[in-house]
């Protein structure tokens, strides 16, 4: 099972023939991802060799879908053209578009995420590391060799914190890890992932990583109270961030009293989520909670 991405997923890569696209397509293939094609209007009809596999290049996403039955696209297209690339994928009827590109103007993100919602395409990102279902498929740039398949689901705004937690819990393994991205507007939220993990029989426990800015974590807390029965462990970054300064991610900014790490931690704890003070402590909370769950009488 896992969420959003499985070994059945047939993956296109928009921008595959660029530097980042080539590098990460190779890595995705090595991780077992079924990459069925690249998209580049100027290189349609060519094939690109990745070690033992020749991947065809299509002129459009629609052509790629028609020829291969692709249902996922990973977008490495540079910011000025990324918006149009996503809209093209949505128009072609793709089910999931994973937008890795960092630096897309917010007006473009607003336009394509709202358009995708109307058309029924799930967007992950932009400005995200993508998602991985270890042992099955990897759509994006998350290093696939950190950990293996397991029963913890992870959702995070941050790429490197995702890697850090995957590493801390490498012996436990993950069902799916989703990097939703650090921009102010993203297509898939913490809540979307919580809902999917709650319904996923392969996920036993959920790790939620947040950071300063906006109120996504507070909203996630409210959602957990109403809808999530699986144990959730949280971590929030940015307690020491000063007000009014953007901390790396475009969305990571405390505005006045809004968006603070304190408020997010308090909101999560108020609904029974255990929140770690450091990534390592967070991993320990996961281990302790898994022990409790697994020793429960019915197990």
């Amino acid at each position, binding site marked *: 099972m896992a969420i959003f991405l499985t070994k059945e997923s047939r993956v296109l890569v928009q921008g595959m023939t660029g530097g980042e696209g080539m590098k990460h397509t190779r890595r995705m293939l090595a991780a077992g991802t079924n990459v069925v094609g690249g998209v580049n209007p100027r290189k349609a009809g060519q094939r690109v060799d990745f070690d033992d596999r020749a991947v065809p290049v299509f002129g459009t996403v629609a052509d790629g879908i028609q020829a291969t039955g692709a249902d996922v696209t990973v977008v490495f297209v540079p*910011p*000025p053209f990324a918006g149009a690339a996503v809209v093209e994928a949505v128009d072609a009827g793709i089910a999931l578009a994973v937008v890795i590109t960092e*630096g*897309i*103007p*917010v*007006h473009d*993100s*607003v*336009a394509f*995420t*709202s*358009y995708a*919602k109307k058309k029924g395409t799930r967007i992950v990102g932009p400005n995200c590391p993508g998602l991985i279902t270890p042992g099955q498929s990897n759509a994006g*740039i*998350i*290093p696939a*060799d*950190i950990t293996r398949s397991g029963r913890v689901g992870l959702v*995070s705004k*941050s*790429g*490197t*914190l*995702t*890697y*850090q937690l995957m*590493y801390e819990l490498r012996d436990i393994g993950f069902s799916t890890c989703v990097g939703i991205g*650090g921009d*102010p*507007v993203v*297509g898939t939220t913490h809540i979307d992932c919580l809902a999917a993990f709650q319904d996923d029989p392969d996920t036993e426990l959920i790790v939620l*990583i947040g*950071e300063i800015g*906006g*109120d*996504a974590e507070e*909203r996630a807390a409210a959602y957990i109270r109403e809808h999530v029965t699986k144990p959730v462990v949280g*971590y929030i*970054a*940015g*307690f*020491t*961030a*000063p007000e009014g*300064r*953007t*901390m*790396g*991610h*475009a*969305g*990571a900014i405390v505005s*006045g009293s809004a968006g603070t*790490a304190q408020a997010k931690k308090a909101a999560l704890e108020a609904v029974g989520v255990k929140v770690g*003070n*450091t*990534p*390592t*402590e967070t991993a320990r909370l996961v281990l302790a909670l898994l022990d409790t769950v697994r020793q429960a009488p019915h197990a």
Partner: protein
Amino acid sequence: MDLYEHEARGLFEERGIPVSRAEVTDSPQEARVMARRLGGSVVVKAQVKTGGRGKAGGVRLAADPAEAERTARRILGMDIKGHKVGKVMLAQPVDIESEFYVAYVLDRAAGSFLAIASAAGGMDIEEVAAVRPEAVARIPIDPAEGVTSAKAGEIAEAAGLPPGTVDVLVRLWEVLVGQDAVLVEVNPLVRTRQGHILALDGKVTLDDNARFRQPRRGTGSMACDDPLEAAAAAKGLNYVKLDGSVGIIGNGAGLVMSTLDVVAGCGARPANFLDIGGGASAQVMADGLTVILSDPAVKSVFVNVFGGITACDAVADGIVRALDEVRLTKPLVVRLDGNNAARGRALLDERAHPLVQQATTMDGAARRAAELANAG
């Protein structure tokens, strides 16, 4: 990026939103000349990117050009909530009948823009919303539709604004879209006793990601106030100056934010935020170390890298080569974990720099860096 009031006013004026007559200067003598040009009596307004400048004495009425000069002299150089006043705007006084609030803001949760409007303008809108939420209208904008006259009419009606504001609402949306802004706010939007609608004060926040298609960007207000931030920006580093003594270098915004927190949890204060990203080349490492070591408050430096896509041996190689280029003056604590961590650690051990020490965990390294800073 936030704009100064006078910059926001310029964008409004360009788009045909009525504004009061005004001029900007950094010189008291010039303020006198400008006041004369504007008719004698003027409002002198400090240009700072923070609210509450009225209460801080940064907005004053001057009755004549001589008083305008004296007032400008008093306001220029003033410190308002940590912002130094470099310029004042002189504006013609306006005979106000009523004050309104209008804004378009990014609604992160909805993933779209929201119109916020109120007939109770001139005050802090968050206070109005807290005390009288019914006085603040919030209307979501469909990004595919934008703000048409009909939509603007709907916003004005919901907020109880006069029909004369509809045109302003449409043009303000055009400013938002045309400038790639994530916030445009007019507070107050006023109706004068003569019946004119005027934007008296405004705030605009631009989207830094859109710089590539907004060629006019990147002038005066881009300059950093802090010299270390300016030096880092010149090297293309993602650096924010903080007020502590542990210099921080890490890869990835989330991990660096987390590193600051973990250091703070160990009883020291971080001196900066610096995300060197995935690549972490020797040059970036050297540039980062140079900026951090030039901060006199720094007593120790903590390099925290998780090798995901980048292998730790490449990062270690970057550190080793940076050590040849930069004279290390403070102890450096390095934590390498993840991809090829063992090889990376071995490379640093081989280099055996007396000021460089390694720790295998993030928490342990943070503790060590904090101890060194507190001892130094």
